[in-house]
């Protein structure tokens, strides 16, 4: 059940109608049942995994609370981490590693005859395993008290707005909102409705309309000229942003309507001028997770310069691998790590940039980000090589594809960028509902017109579901 489906609209209307009339405890039970139904709508067989992850981590949390011995506490934490990483490793990476091992041994003449398992990827597994791991680690670190209430904990893990594509929530932010009675303010409803509309705009108007443009350039048998590779990569950059930010906004909006605040996951990431700022504004819940549970435990920037570089590269490579079992994702992670490493010595210089310098830095950063998306979107390392070669050796402005690439790209990104700039100027992703009434209503109406007149209602899945 995707957000952009009629099935979800009915599901949410029914759940929300009941939610508004139930008392607090009843609301939590409703959220639990609805969340499991929401998850089962994809594949009921994987509900057991979600339940197992919930039970194991709830139990680990309770055990940690009752233990004083540090070595034992550490052992319990590693049991939880081990369990979650095993789930993730088996369901997400088994096929990848088995295939690569086979290729590796074949290269030295050993033909291994693996039992071929067609392991299906349970939707959202990368998200909920990270959620539950962070909970146990936070309890181990004594940053939070484990909850006694199993229903509250199960809702925290399975809460349907964030279950399958994030944001990756922390217990500190979400559990108290689940445990305590909620009051829904008029402002939450207003902001929630705007976030839902804007999320649909980003998904249906921007992402789903740009998807064919990117597919056109990244098709296996396409041999586009460099300038069209660039346009196709721009299209993918806005497609993936619209898709993922759209999902996050719909998740935040529906959650606001229920009186629960989810964290911001995106803050105009394409308007930044440094790689560091990009990761502070892109998929914020993942980048902060990687920072708090991987980069800092590895030593962060506390050691030598080399250690910092190693920690950055390792964190980003694993961040890339988190996105999927493919070499292009790992390469993308390493590329992002490299950008961060290369940027560090220039940090003071970037801070001192004037207006023109900042503009140049923005152009550079946007294109470096786009090249990252080229790595990310390429179907193989071979295609990546071909497209890169085309980009740098066959870049003829004369071969620009105006009709099928440039015009639709401008049409579908201009309204998004206009709102993006408005938000960035106010440094507030919720600036639209706070605008004066005439302008606000104009934006509301235009957003609805653009969705209904030009939106792609094909009901395509969200890209991040596959991660």
């Amino acid at each position, binding site marked *: 059940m995707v957000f952009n489906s009629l099935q979800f609209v009915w599901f949410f209307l029914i759940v929300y109608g009941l939610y508004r009339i139930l008392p607090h405890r009843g609301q939590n039970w409703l959220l639990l049942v609805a969340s499991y139904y929401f998850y089962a709508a994809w594949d009921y067989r994987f509900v057991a995994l979600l339940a197992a992850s919930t039970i194991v981590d709830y139990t680990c949390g309770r055990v940690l609370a009752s233990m004083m011995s540090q070595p034992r506490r550490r052992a319990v934490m590693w049991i939880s981490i081990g369990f979650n990483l095993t789930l993730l490793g088996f369901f997400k990476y088994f096929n990848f590693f088995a295939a690569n091992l086979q290729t590796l041994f074949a290269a030295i003449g050993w033909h291994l005859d693996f039992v071929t398992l067609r392991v299906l990827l349970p939707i959202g597994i990368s998200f909920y395993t990270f959620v539950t791991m962070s909970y146990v680690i936070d309890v181990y670190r004594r940053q939070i008290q484990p909850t006694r209430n199993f229903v509250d904990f199960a809702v925290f893990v399975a809460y349907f707005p964030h279950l399958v594509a994030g944001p990756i929530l922390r217990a500190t932010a979400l559990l108290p909102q689940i445990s305590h009675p909620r009051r829904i303010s008029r402002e939450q409803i207003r902001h929630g409705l705007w976030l839902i509309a804007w999320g649909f705009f980003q998904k249906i108007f921007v992402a789903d309309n740009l998807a064919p443009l990117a597919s056109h350039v990244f098709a296996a048998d396409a041999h586009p000229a460099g300038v069209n590779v660039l346009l196709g990569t721009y299209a993918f950059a806005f497609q993936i942003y619209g898709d993922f930010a759209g999902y996050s906004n719909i998740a935040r909006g529906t959650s606001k309507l229920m009186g629960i605040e989810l964290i911001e996951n995106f803050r105009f990431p394409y308007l930044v001028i440094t790689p560091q700022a990009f990761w502070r504004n892109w998929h914020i819940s993942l980048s902060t997770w990687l920072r708090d549970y991987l980069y800092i435990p590895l030593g962060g920037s506390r050691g030598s310069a080399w250690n910092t570089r190693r920690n950055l590269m390792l964190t980003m490579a694993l961040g890339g691998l988190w996105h999927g079992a493919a070499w292009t994702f790992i390469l993308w992670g390493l590329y992002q790590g490299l950008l961060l490493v290369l940027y560090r010595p220039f940090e003071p210089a970037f801070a001192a940039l004037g207006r023109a310098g900042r503009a140049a830095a923005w152009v550079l950063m946007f294109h470096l980000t786009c090249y990252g998306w080229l790595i990310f979107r390429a179907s193989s390392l071979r295609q990546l090589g071909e497209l890169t070669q085309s980009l740098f050796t066959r870049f003829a402005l004369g071969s620009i594809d105006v*009709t099928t690439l440039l015009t639709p790209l401008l049409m579908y990104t201009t309204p998004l960028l206009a709102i993006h700039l408005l938000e960035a100027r106010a440094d507030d992703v919720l600036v639209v509902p706070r605008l004066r009434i005439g302008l606000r209503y104009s934006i*509301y109406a235009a957003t609805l017109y653009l969705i209904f*007149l030009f939106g792609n209602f094909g009901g395509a899945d969200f890209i991040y579901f596959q991660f």
Partner: protein
Amino acid sequence: MRARRALLFLAIVAIQFVGFEAALRTWGHSEAAPAFQALFVPDPIVGYRLRPNARTRFATAEFDTEIGINAQGVRDDRDIGPKPADERRIVVLGDSLVLSVQVDLRQTFCKLLEARLNRANEARSGRPIHYRVINAGVQGYGPVEEMFFFREIARAFEPDLVIETIFVGNDAEDAVAAAPRLKGSSRSVAESASESLISRVRRIVRHSMVLQVLRLRVVSVTDRFSHWLSPPEPPLQSYAATPAPRIAEGLQISRDCVRGIAQDAEAVSAPTIVMLMPARFQVDDADYGRLKQIVEAAGGTLVRDGATARFDEALAPLGLARFDALPALRAAPPGPDVFFQQTVHLTPRGHEIVADALEQFLRRQGF
């Protein structure tokens, strides 16, 4: 306060409506555009037909064409008067695949066939016989409308040969949908004239591009809703391994209509042949792979040439010559696409291939 805000919002919606309407009329060329819709005129017998002497421009990302309808209501740049003694006329009936608004008139397979026949005749015998191939295709027609159109309008063109073009992709479904017309349940002129509130609203909607698009959205949502209430039927039923019963019904209606056309043509001493036109995915492997997945995901099985075989079998008892355009399109050497990517229609190259194959077929058949 609330009422004032609601009024303000409505005013903004209305102002933007005008803006979007103007923008769509200026830049948004589509079949929903009033300019394109103005090509059609209601007809009490057939339902609708091309408006005599209509002119419009139709442009999308893939093509940009000028469309002209002659005084008789078919796509042509010349009127059709009494047949001169040295003229042989071929009337090609069909739907949008014959009308072909995606290409210029000279690029349609009808005009290409006309040119080939005239050239070949001139080279062979030098006799002063002129061939005229009349494009009598109308967007959205199925076998039922084509039969009525021939009976009411095209028969008067004095054909020497009639080619009934069957689009195997949807003509069985179209025939079922138009079947009530066969029983004479079409609305009378008087009924059409008396306008109800609904028809007034419909007319307003038809004249606004914004409302046309919104109407399509509403239809799509209600369709999905009805699919949600009952399990959705796999798409492309004409190609299904086990199609819905209505496909057999559609094939039978199609056969009856083709028989009707052949009888009417025979009455003016014109033989009839049937041309089977394939869908794009029958030629395009990538398109086939994509649709196969969609049909399988919906629980069906797609038989790639299933509809062609079904129509061939259904029309065989009529004893009419049948020309299948599929082998020629499929055998086309590598080159530009034979179908457009965003529509199911032939590109100029596709029209060339069909015209060549059709000319050879007519020659083989001794027409």
